[in-house]
């Protein structure tokens, strides 16, 4: 029953939470740049406007992949918030990502094509850490299931500090924040135009935006798990983490994909793997 409520809340409320998060993000960013910024509901106005526009596409296929992207992001969240298997959640998230990339390949346009390649490089960068995080949580709690991990009484982050650092590192990639906003940027003035989303317009662009909102909420759910022993601490951690990401976004210039791939693998190996080895050693 509780699981069903969580799933319903995810499907219905997550886009609103994600949209609000995006609105707050824009205000905080504006304040950091000594601007006033848009109203907090601006992202909703934007998406509603996009939804009202006529759909323009390069070919008949591309929007199909985007719909699949949204469906699988929602499906991933359903798995996560119903307390399902954490690894399976990660795999479902990868499926969603693959559909998004295929959508960008479909128009065969140079800008979205390079955006797609870079998105794949980003996926290659963060994939190991996601799996390592799931493994770490399993090694401490002895369960792959979110519903067991969330009721674990001790603070997971104390056991998995290295894994958490590695996770924060790739969270910047996943949230598409500078210095790792390689495939597409919130800021229009980049060398790839809008990168992976260049060839999308109107309703399909709105779908992409909504899917990203869902995705961001899901990622905050992952952060929550590290602190799940106490829900107040966990929510505080989620807020602080998000503010930290906004801060990083505003203080770093974009880096190259070489650096992204290398650094995230090195961080995964140094912080994530070492952390796992220590737990495994202590466990024996």
């Amino acid at each position, binding site marked *: 029953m509780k699981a069903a409520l969580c799933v319903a809340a995810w499907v219905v409320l997550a886009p609103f939470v994600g949209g609000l998060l995006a609105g707050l993000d824009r205000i905080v960013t504006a304040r950091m740049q000594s601007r006033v910024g848009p109203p907090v509901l601006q992202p909703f106005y934007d998406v509603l406007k996009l939804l009202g526009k006529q759909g323009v596409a390069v070919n008949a296929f591309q929007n199909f992949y985007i719909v699949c992207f949204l469906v699988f992001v929602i499906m991933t969240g359903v798995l996560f918030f119903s307390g*399902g298997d954490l690894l399976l959640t990660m795999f479902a998230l990868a*499926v969603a990502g693959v559909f998004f990339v295929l959508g960008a390949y479909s128009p065969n346009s140079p800008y979205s094509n390079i955006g797609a390649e870079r998105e794949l490089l980003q996926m290659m960068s963060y*994939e*190991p850490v996601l799996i390592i995080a799931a493994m770490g949580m399993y090694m401490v709690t002895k369960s792959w299931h979110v519903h067991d991990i969330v009721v674990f009484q001790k603070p997971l982050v104390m056991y998995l500090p290295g894994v958490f650092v590695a996770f924060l590192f790739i969270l910047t990639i996943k949230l598409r924040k500078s210095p790792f906003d390689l495939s597409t940027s919130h800021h229009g003035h980049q060398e790839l*135009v809008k990168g992976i989303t260049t060839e999308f*317009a109107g309703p399909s662009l709105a779908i992409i935006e909504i899917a990203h909102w869902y995705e961001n909420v899901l990622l905050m759910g992952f952060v929550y798990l590290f602190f799940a022993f106490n829900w107040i601490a966990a929510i505080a951690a989620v807020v602080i983490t998000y503010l930290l990401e906004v801060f990083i976004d505003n203080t770093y210039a974009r880096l190259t994909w*070489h650096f992204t791939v290398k650094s995230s*693998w090195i961080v995964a190996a140094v912080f994530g793997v070492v952390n796992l080895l220590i737990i495994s050693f202590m466990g024996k």
Partner: protein
Amino acid sequence: MNIILFLLLFPAAVSLLFAVLPPNGFRNAVVRISCLLIAAGSVYAAVVFNGHGATFFKAEYPHLEQMFFFGEMALSLFLLYKCIGIKRHEWYIPVLIIIQAGIMAYCELSGAVPEVGHAFYIDNFSIIMALIIGIIGSLICFYAISYMRDYHHHHPEMKNRQRSFFFILFFFLSAMFGVVFSNNLIWLYFFWEITTLSSFILIGYPKTEEAIRNAYKALGLNLLGGLGFACGILYLVKFCPAHTIELSQVIALGPTVMLIPVILICFAGLAKSAQMPFSSWLLGAMVAPTPVSALLHSSTMVKAGIFIIIKFAPVLHNTWAGYFLALVGGVTFLMTSIIAVTQSNAKRVLAYSTIANLGLIVACAGVGTYETLWAAVLLTVFHAVSKGLLFLGVGSIEHKIGSRDIEDMNGLIVNRPGLAMVMLIGILGMFLAPFGMLISKWACLEAFVNSNIVLAVLLAFGSAPTLFFWTKWMGKIVSVPAGVQKGEGAVSKDEWTALGLLAAGTIATAALFPLLSRVSVEPYIFSLYQQTVELTQGNIIIMAILLGLMVLLPLSFLAYPKKSQYAQRYLAGANVGDTGSFTGAMGITREATMRNYYLGELFSEKKLFVISVAVTIAIIATMFLAVKL
């Protein structure tokens, strides 16, 4: 027993027929019927023997032992005769042949060969292997009919030696059945060497200089592995106190007595399954016609190596030697997955991915817990189906578009929608949830975390490049370039039959894997470990939902509103019609072209290959030293 004899002898018998029949309609009809009979035979064996545990058979025919011995010696002589074509640097090939023949002759003539009670057996795992060989192997032979016709059409300079081609193809199937049904290790060794010989001849089929050199490379490396097998038999015959050469006995006696011969034979398995440092032979095998590649990669040859290592998993469990064997597989998985990113030749990408997935199977078998063994068996099944499909798909594409380069597959979804769908299903089957390979990877990961965290980490890092190279390939297939039209000329019916059945098989194995596990794999695991993997109901349902989405979502495409307005792609300049060209600065017309990323500057194939070879040689050396631990 009769059905086993049928599977052993029938392909060999019809192969003799193909050696004399010219490639005409009658020959083709015989090939089709034979394929059907072999597939039906393997299904019949499965229906009769599945779930009965291991059933053993005596082979009490006069002079059978002597006949096998003469067979082995004749095989060695034939290989020595073939060595007249070698170059100076391939001197080690005849040396290896002579040493192996010497060891076997010494064993058998010394009179110390133990009595064999049961020469043949069939259990759930050999049934699974027989189904892979019988169904996928025959589908590939079926496909070969029209492929070889087109092949010689495309290569008029090449001599048409289809008679020897089909002769070896079916002979190969017989040998594979021999490998999976033999309980007598000396006979198993004989069949093992026949698979080496067959692949040597098939790889050299084009008779170009490159093909001949690669054939010798395959022969040399597999003989090196075979030497390990021969040494294992020598140990069993002359030094082992237990005095047996029955496979079932060797497994039952366990690591304290049997670890040395088992590791020696697993060494042969590493070579045959093209693990690092032996991988180069399988990459070289790409020069052969595509059905050969498909056969080597999916249902025969490399699967023989995997088969024997999986068979010995209970012996390897909880030993240091097994740990290092698993590490060879894990390192191979990671390194070849990364190398595959740098390749644009479709067949090479498939080859590296085969080596990587076999590495994963070796890692599972080396760990040897009941969970990893479950994953290993399922990986073998799923890999055989998807990889067979992908190779045959690339073969058909190559004949239609004249290239096997992934870059040239741009726009395949418009140009050849049918083949594009086939390729997409195959690729999805290889790496994405909820298809087979991912289910097994998932099981591996869960099992490794409990037993060997280093392997789990190797798997976590190795999966990421896998995602990269498969998705960028799919990207090329689904992209819709300007001005691409539907291609001319249909793919032949035989090819479609094979492709369609394998594509259906890829989806069906993903849908029915809980059934496969319950009926076939779990009883096998249980008989070895007295415990087995239990699939959680919830996860099965979720996988079913995911699969349903994957299959149903494309249908939604039919209902998609067609009222969309179409625009031209953005090229940062004025588009010149819908051609993919644009008017750039200074009024010059430029064409926009794009290629996938191959990360050549980050990873170099040569460098990574050398590193992996060095690392795995060191691990294998440690593995042999660790036998005594």
